[in-house]
């Protein structure tokens, strides 16, 4: 068993190496309802984090892992927060899926966020479902507490069809539920 390489911070200069043209589009490669996932990332003082990299990995509309496209990986989106700490990705609505143990998962994204000041990434799952619909999802069960579950539920935007809003608070009041790894 080889020893793992430790994680280090992404630092403030990552755009040089990590900028992908059109990276904010997940290019799932199969049809589905077009959606936008957007929100703000804020720190322990409530200030916007303008130097974060935000990545999502998801199932396609049928609940299957997307295959590679000709020039892009399928199902992976990468974007960078702006001055207001806002991120935004474009994709298709992921389908529900099941685990090998029969567990049922509501439509969701795996989210990985990197930033200066984080020596390792923060990881979580954002669920595109109401608290009631998500109640048997393994992540909802693991979180337990209803107020904390709310921090990982994206909300449909009433004014903009197809847009889901989800804010990330990395520390403090209303801190998002992150996953241990």
């Amino acid at each position, binding site marked *: 068993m080889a020893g793992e*390489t430790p994680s280090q911070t992404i630092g403030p*200069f990552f755009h040089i*190496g990590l900028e992908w043209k059109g990276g904010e589009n997940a290019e799932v490669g199969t049809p589905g309802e077009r959606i936008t996932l957007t929100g703000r990332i804020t720190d322990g003082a409530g200030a916007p984090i303008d130097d974060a990299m935000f990545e999502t990995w998801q199932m396609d509309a049928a609940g299957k892992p997307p295959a590679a496209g000709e020039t892009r990986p399928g199902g992976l989106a990468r974007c960078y927060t702006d001055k207001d700490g806002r991120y935004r990705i474009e994709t298709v609505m992921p389908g529900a899926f099941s685990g090998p143990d029969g567990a049922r998962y509501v439509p969701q994204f795996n989210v990985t966020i990197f930033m200066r000041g984080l020596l390792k*990434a923060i990881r979580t799952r954002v669920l595109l479902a109401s608290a009631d619909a998500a109640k048997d999802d393994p992540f909802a069960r693991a979180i337990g507490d209803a107020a904390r579950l709310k921090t990982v539920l994206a909300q449909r935007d009433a004014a903009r069809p197809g847009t889901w809003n989800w804010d990330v608070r990395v520390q403090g009041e209303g801190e998002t539920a992150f*996953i241990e790894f």
Partner: protein
Amino acid sequence: MPQIHPPYLYPPYKSTVLRAPKQALVRVPPSPLDTSGPAFPKRFVKQSEADLTQWGKGAPLGEKMILVGRVLDDAGRPVRSALVELWQCNAAGRYAHPVDQHDAPLDPNFLGRGQVLTDDAGEFRFVTIKPGAYPWRNQPFGWRPAHLHFSLFGSTNAERLITQMFFPGDPLLPIDPIFNSPPDPAARARMVASLELESGIEEVALGYRFEIVLGGRRATPMGH
């Protein structure tokens, strides 16, 4: 087993203070999204991005180096078609980035961006120059040791890693809070490349080796 990764809150690195999560982290069994991951087609990377010295019209300033290595999983098996992304500052310690305002010259022949997919043996090879050390405001008289930034995608989403590579014998390593943030000295040593002269080019470039081991099997059902 000693902790391999740094903690979120590590006050010697000041920027962690307002950005480290403080609530208990959630323990949840791996989902099918953790045990799958994006696949990168060959055409995603440009062949030219393996040689960072070819970016400008002329040769960049600095000590030319060949960096070889492998991406392995934590059972020591090579990871094929892993995406390896690299970024670094120039030989004077300046990043080609608007946020870097430190008073050192930009090099018109150096951007500092590299990208490759590993081959069937999990191997990669970059041609670049050794980055310079640079000052930062984290602590009085603070200087970051020479380092290269690496971003890795393995075969599953759980293997995703961003790390930094350092140089053997660098006198700035003991004062760098970022390098020293992983608590286990043996784990820190895995971020230091080794000199491998025969991987260089005689009379042209120094050779270094950097082996990267991805975790994440703990996130697979087998690991439970």
